[in-house]
């Protein structure tokens, strides 16, 4: 698989389509699995990690999946390519930074990624654009079943799928939905939502997972509990709150529009104007401005640009993507200039041919 091809597409989760895609960016499910006969990754020698990798790689290659998965060895990748995969959410920051033999198997559309020798031997991930947890579950369950025919998983009747960290044991499942919530944040109701979610043991994280900031008003909501509930139950709990959050965000958008249409219009127009004309742009500012533009498109306050284009800009303006596009390694200041110039060019094209 040639990673350069990734810079010509925006990947499944940023396709900008699917149910409720004005607010739900993507749905994602991951399963943690381990081989029964090996120590967990943190306790495995490099020799054992190589054995685990060879074994899983061989089994994954034989999966009856169309299209086939391609396997990438992480140590063989440049740090820029690793960062590119992190930015696209195909591997975790932990896998990018870890030591020893490890890798990832991917489908060309980036809907499935199987990480090898992460904290657990195998981390399966399925991603869908928009709000489609159910579909993501069907897919990952099928891949898990296929793998299980060829691999003896570490499993106990009492504790379920055994994982390196006790916080993942049981189903080994983390289901998450990424939401764009600019109006709830602006109207300061987001805290209320978070508190309510915490009470029912759902976690809220920023765009790039644990410890990351919620830049661009993107939030990931996921289950924390993995033991003592069935997968269907866990999914139901998340699915019982997401529609409410979507409704709150829509209401907040409408009341913002009703109470201060001019102010909102101005905010969005300024964001668009800055993106079209600035000559230096940090990734943080880009996220915030694109977030405002995205909101403007959904409220029909801006016509020059479409959601898929904005989604593309979100990902292509990330540091590794930008450097890939430019074909050169750039330092912070150079990146800011390159980012601004890329944005100006893309928005000029989009404005000239609105679709």
């Amino acid at each position, binding site marked *: 698989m040639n990673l350069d091809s990734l810079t010509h597409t925006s990947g499944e989760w940023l396709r900008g389509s699917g149910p409720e895609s004005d607010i739900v960016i993507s749905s994602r499910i991951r399963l943690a699995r381990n081989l029964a*006969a090996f120590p967990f990754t943190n*306790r495995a020698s490099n020799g054992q990690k190589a054995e685990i990798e060879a074994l899983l790689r061989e089994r994954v290659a034989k999966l009856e999946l169309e299209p086939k998965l391609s396997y990438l060895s992480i140590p063989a990748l440049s740090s820029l390519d690793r960062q590119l995969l992190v930015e696209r959410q195909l591997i975790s920051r932990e896998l990018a930074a870890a030591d020893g033999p490890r890798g990832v198997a991917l489908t060309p559309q980036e809907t499935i990624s199987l990480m090898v020798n992460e904290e657990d031997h195998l981390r399966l991930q399925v991603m869908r654009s928009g709000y489609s947890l159910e579909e993501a579950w069907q897919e990952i369950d099928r891949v898990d079943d296929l793998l299980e025919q060829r691999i*003896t*998983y*570490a499993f106990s009747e009492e504790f379920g799928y055994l994982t390196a*960290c006790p916080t993942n044991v049981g189903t080994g499942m983390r289901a998450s939905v990424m939401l764009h919530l600019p109006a709830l944040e602006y109207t300061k109701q987001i805290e209320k939502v978070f*508190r309510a979610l915490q009470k029912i043991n759902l976690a809220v994280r*920023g765009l790039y997972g644990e410890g990351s900031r919620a830049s661009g008003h993107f939030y990931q909501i996921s289950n924390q509990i993995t033991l003592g*509930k069935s997968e269907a139950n866990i999914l139901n709990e998340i699915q019982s709150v997401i529609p409410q959050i979507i409704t709150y965000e829509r209401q907040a958008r409408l009341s913002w529009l009703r109470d201060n249409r001019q102010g909102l219009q101005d905010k969005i127009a300024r964001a668009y104007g800055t993106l079209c004309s600035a000559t230096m742009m940090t990734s943080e500012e880009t996220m915030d401005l694109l977030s405002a533009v995205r909101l403007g498109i959904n409220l029909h306050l801006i016509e020059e640009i479409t959601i898929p284009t904005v989604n593309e800009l979100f990902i292509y303006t990330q540091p590794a993507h930008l450097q890939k596009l430019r074909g050169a390694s750039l330092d912070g200041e150079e990146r800011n200039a390159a980012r601004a110039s890329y944005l100006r060019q893309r928005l000029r094209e989009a404005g000239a041919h609105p679709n």
Partner: protein
Amino acid sequence: MKCQFCSNPATVHLTDIVDSHKKELHLCQSCAEQHHLIQKQELNLPAILQSLIGQHLGPQTDELARLTCPACGIKYMEFRAQGRLGCPHDYVVFRAGLAPLLQRIHRSNHHLGKFPQRSVLAPEQQAELVELRRRLQSAIDREAYEEAARLRDLLRRKGCHG
């Protein structure tokens, strides 16, 4: 200094340098947590796990502290310090410490989800395989190739293919 989100005193001070631009945040503990701004290292998951484990051990602590997994060689205290287990068999060996910990984390200590369709290995079989693998690795490290070959054969005979 006051928290930027509420009026409580700010106790968490974060400096973010993005593309060589400095951004400062001053928050109270609870806002910092709610915004998930405290990094993993600062949150110190192992320490939290350790305190969770500690709370539930009481008189059992000494007994647990002496436990070592025969399959992978990890000590219970090492698990406490790192928050990560060494191998699947630890769930059997450290059960006395883990069951209350799981209860605390998940409010349950019994699996209710999916089961593998194929028959699963019994815990003893899983442990034996992990231990054989450990002995194999140590034989290779010592360059004891005859022993390594013997162990490899044994693993193969036990039908271990992952």
